[in-house]
């Protein structure tokens, strides 16, 4: 197969001092946008192999599969790349019984990890949310300056941003500026 060109590949924001701030692109994965009605969540969970959380903002994982609940009937499903076709096939088989929409958006987004004791501060440069209120293992769609992002708090000091490719440079540029401020302690 031909070569893939990955946005932000090889770029890295890191400040001096251990564990202060590290911003990097995340390895590619399979991503699906799943839309399914309330009554079918159990079936869909089975198909994905991971219980779909029912509360907006909740997440769940099983093995390397991750389900992020973004709306009342909307989930972002993340899985290792090699699981892509099997997931599609499982859902397709269920379609007659369980009408839903499963759309491959693997290439739509770029994943960015923002990690370190300065992660929250870096995000506060352009994210209007009160991150003190955001529990670990919760997710939300929000904005980062002028870009829409999905923000997933993986740990106290570790966030994952999912952003459409063409907005990634903008998000990166601001994180870079914020990283410089953290570096300078200003």
């Amino acid at each position, binding site marked *: 197969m031909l070569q893939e060109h990955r946005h932000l590949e090889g770029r890295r924001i890191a400040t001096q001092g251990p564990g202060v701030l590290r911003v990097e692109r995340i390895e590619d994965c399979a991503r699906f946008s799943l839309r399914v009605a309330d009554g079918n969540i159990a079936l869909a969970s089975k198909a994905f192999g991971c219980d779909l959380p029912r509360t907006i903002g909740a997440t769940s994982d099983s093995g390397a599969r991750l389900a992020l609940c973004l*709306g009342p009937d909307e989930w972002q499903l993340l899985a290792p790349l090699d699981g892509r076709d099997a997931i599609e096939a499982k859902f397709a088989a269920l379609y007659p019984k369980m009408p839903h929409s499963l759309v491959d958006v693997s290439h739509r987004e770029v994943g960015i990890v923002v990690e370190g004791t300065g992660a929250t501060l870096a995000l506060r440069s352009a994210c209007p949310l009160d991150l003190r209120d955001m529990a670990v293992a919760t997710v939300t769609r929000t904005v980062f300056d002028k870009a*829409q992002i999905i923000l997933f708090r993986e740990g106290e000091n570790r966030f994952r941003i999912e952003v459409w490719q063409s907005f990634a440079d903008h998000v990166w540029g601001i994180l870079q500026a914020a990283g410089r401020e953290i570096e300078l302690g200003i």
Partner: protein
Amino acid sequence: MLLIRCPYCAAERPEVEFVYAGEAHIARPSDPSALTDEQWKNHLFIRTNPRGAHFERWRHLHGCGRFFNAVRDTVTDKFAMTYRAGLPRPTASEIKEARP
């Protein structure tokens, strides 16, 4: 920047995540062809534009994506309450009770 309570997310979120979407409780006629030109004009263009409590639609665009309804005071800009799309127009006493 306003704080807006999304009735789907059950959380107060910053205004930049939302977009305004016009007056609420204006249902599209089930058969527009049955309407006279005058009635259709009224449906399309005539809005209440009140001073005070205004029923309006918002969408949590950069959030859960849902359209919902709100009661907002056009003088103070303050939200009295928000509620899910499809629910009936709240009564005056419900609005009064909801106001923080």
